[in-house]
């Protein structure tokens, strides 16, 4: 099963890279873009877990390793369903 985890800065944290991208878009005439937040994407290939087990393990991995909860938040989704044994 393939899982995608998205990590981005919390709203309370300034994202200077996102701001720089937004400013570049403004310069190029895309003034309708009012905010940009930059983040990270992780795609995990998971084997040997049921979907239920994966649903427990993924937030744990994201919270412990992939994101730093002091500054970042995360969302995740399963891209393909678990194979039935």
């Amino acid at each position: 099963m393939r899982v995608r985890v998205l990590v981005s800065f919390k709203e309370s944290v300034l994202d200077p890279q996102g701001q720089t991208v937004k400013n570049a878009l403004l310069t190029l005439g895309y003034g309708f873009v009012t905010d940009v937040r930059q983040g990270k994407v992780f795609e995990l290939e998971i084997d040997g877990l049921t979907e239920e087990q994966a649903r427990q393990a993924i937030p744990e991995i994201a919270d412990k390793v992939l994101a730093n909860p002091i500054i970042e938040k995360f969302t995740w989704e399963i891209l393909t369903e678990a194979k039935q044994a």
Partner: protein
Amino acid sequence: MKFGVVVFPGSNCDHDTFFALKEVLHQETVFLWHKDHDLHGVDCVVLPGGFSYGDYLRAGAIARFSPLMQEVREFAEGGGRVLGICNGFQVLLELGLLPGAMLRNKNLKFLCQFVRLRVENRDTQFTRRVRSGQLLRLPIAHYDGQYFAPPETLKGLEEHGQVVLRYVNEKGEPTVEANVNGSADNIAGLINRAGNVLGLMPHPERASEARLGSEDGRLIFESLIQP
């Protein structure tokens, strides 16, 4: 006093730190390999600057899971002295031995320059040799040095005298201009509540001899060594 300098893949100030402690300050000093499980009886663990694991994921995030870090955590929790310099400070934050996190510098530039620092707490094992009102001149070299912590954490740090170093101007004022990386409250160095773990972004080992442009970094090491 016996110092141990931890070596991660990607550490690049480990030899400078070793040299400053051993050759300049004449202390017994050993390297500690990150894969070992042995602190070799050191009195102080130093996590040096550099780019452990290439700063992959986040600065200090992977080094935190090195085998030796388990021993370092137990050592610190038992009162052992731990000094984290630059990347070492980032590792201490990721480990949770110090509160908060590092963000990319506010101006998105790698900063390599001397800064002036005000010592906010001289009553620590790391700063007791600093004179009252003395400003330190130390070099920084980092990309991810913008200290961040939620407001309630910052308040707690202040109340417990945990802010040890602040970026200041030549008059000793913590101005916006002096705050080169945009850190919360101009914070450049922090200590834990128990007073045995210090993290700082500036490099004292790079300012331990006059020929390097400053000897102010010696004060940090000499404070530790002082019986």
